């Protein structure tokens, strides 16, 4: 795999406060890289530094070998981005907006604009003023704007913010398609784990300006012990039984029965024990962890490691 974006020891200090602390990672061609973290962790700041909107205090960012600090024009030529919301000129039509951006890069033809409009499915409304667009349409126009010049790197900051489920799905399919078929590197930021799971190949977790971990999505999701909710009657007996048989498992009583933190493989033997003791099992379901839970786990692990 060929790397296209590289961050080396990037630090950002604003008014004496370290916002971003020594972050390094790489993004390869054809992969979707997820940038995950709670609000205020430094996702947007990092993205702004990658596209040159913010200066870098120390360290460097290169895109296709060109430094964003010293060779801004060469570096940013390969980048298409939406930073936060896709803000367009509302008093212009969608088409005029695209012409505006097309004029800023050499060699974008009318045909290319039409093709891009077709691609994002805005052909019917492209000559309407942007102020009449819905949020989903603005998001699509934003996407068209960053695809005009066939970038090698696509950067989307919270691309699904405020979109309805259909819109979220559309964006997700789109991102996967671009990475696979055009071999683009896509950097996506979000605070929603579920979304990241479906969209990304790799995830970098950022908290308080520090990059805590970079993992493949599969590893990240599978390495977790999930929480399962067991609907069992009588629940008291079941709880006592589990606690005696598996003293290491965290089991608590919940609304409909009991909830357990176990890995998937442990479930069948566990059910067997319950059934053998004549406990009625009505259902077992996996409770998706919120990012917060997962986050606390990851950060706790890190803290434990540093304190040990």
């Amino acid at each position: 795999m060929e790397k296209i974006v590289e961050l080396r020891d990037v630090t950002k200090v604003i008014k004496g406060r370290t916002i971003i602390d020594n972050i390094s990672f790489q993004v390869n061609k054809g992969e979707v890289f997820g940038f995950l973290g709670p609000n205020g962790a430094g996702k947007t700041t990092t993205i702004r530094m990658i596209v040159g909107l913010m200066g870098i205090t120390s360290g460097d960012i290169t895109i296709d070998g060109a430094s964003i600090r010293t060779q801004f024009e060469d570096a940013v030529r390969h980048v298409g981005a939406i930073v936060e919301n896709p803000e367009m000129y509302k008093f212009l039509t969608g088409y005029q907006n695209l012409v505006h951006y097309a004029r800023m890069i050499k060699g974008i033809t009318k045909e290319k604009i039409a093709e891009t409009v077709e691609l994002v499915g805005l052909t019917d409304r492209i000559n309407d003023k942007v102020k009449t667009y819905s949020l989903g349409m603005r998001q699509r126009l934003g996407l068209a704007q960053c695809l005009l010049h066939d970038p090698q790197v696509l950067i989307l900051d919270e691309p699904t913010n405020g979109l309805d489920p259909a819109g979220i799905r559309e964006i997700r399919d789109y991102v996967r398609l671009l990475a696979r078929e055009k071999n683009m590197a896509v950097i996506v930021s979000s605070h929603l784990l579920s979304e990241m799971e479906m969209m990304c190949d790799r995830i970098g977790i950022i908290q308080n300006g520090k990059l805590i971990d970079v993992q493949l999505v599969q590893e990240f999701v599978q390495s977790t012990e999930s929480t399962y909710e067991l609907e069992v009657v009588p629940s008291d007996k079941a709880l006592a039984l589990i606690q005696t048989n598996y003293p290491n498992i965290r089991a608590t009583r919940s609304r409909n029965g009991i909830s357990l933190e176990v890995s998937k493989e442990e479930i069948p033997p566990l059910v067997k024990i319950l059934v053998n003791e004549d406990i009625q099992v009505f259902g077992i379901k996996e409770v998706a962890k919120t990012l917060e839970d997962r986050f606390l786990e990851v950060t706790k692990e890190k803290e434990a490691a540093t304190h040990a």
Partner: protein
Amino acid sequence: MLNLIKNEWMKIFKRPGTYVMMAILIAITIIVGIFFKYQDTNSKAAVDKKWEQTLQQENDALKKQMDQSQTKIEKKFYQKEIAINDYRIKHHLNPHEKYNVWSFVKDASELIILAGLFTIIVSAGIVASEFNWGTIKLLLIRPINRTKILTSKYLTVLMFALFMLGILFVFSMVLGAILFGTPENAVPYLNYNNGQVTEQNIVVHLLIYYGLNSIKMIMLVTMAFMISSVFRNSSLAIGLSLFLLFTGDQFTALLSLKFSWAKYILFANTDLMQYFEGTPMVEGMTLTFSILMLLLYFVVFQFFAFFVFKKRDVAA
């Protein structure tokens, strides 16, 4: 660069506000025109047949005053008046020319302040609005450095200023021709310089007059542009610039009565006409001094605008 200017031009002219400004400028020119026309027809002064005699009398009176006056500046003024009057008598040029299109164009040039007002509004918004709209983020991630983007914006503002002045000049010319008619033979403008009286084509004279009158406007537009770029706040830029546009001259004049350092204030130097006709605001000021001061202010404004814009972390 041309494409960038095209973009800025498009963003100005796709907004209804711009057309409102043009309409107001034209409407006020029409109102002024009708007002002058009304005055003109009401006060049809009897044509002075013996104007040469009148001028001669005036000159005699002026000469007496000149002999009595103490200051050098006053003497100069009288000298100039006398020289021009002599020239008129010699070349049979009636000073009381019938009010015509050129008189109107010259009077309507007072409206340059209005063109200045509108250009300041555009200038104050051209950077600040991009921040307000959030579009600055998409603008600055193109492979074009920030200096070029800001330069294109400034050039666009200058072009807009020229455009507004053009509208005013051409429209007042057309309106003047309709309302007051064109004079049968073009009357030249009389220029006085170092004891010499020269004739100047009236259109050339008016263009120079327009240019000199626009200096203050251009300087304030540049200041609005700087505030817009440094503070990202169009209201502040508009407010401060307009306040100075309307009061700067008076304040400077007041200060110049007491303090000689008033000559370093921008507004003491914006009126270059003072060196051609009339007297400098503060004694000892010269044309070169004023031009240098104007350049200095210009460079300082541009330096701040560009320096801050280039260094800024865009977090809007």
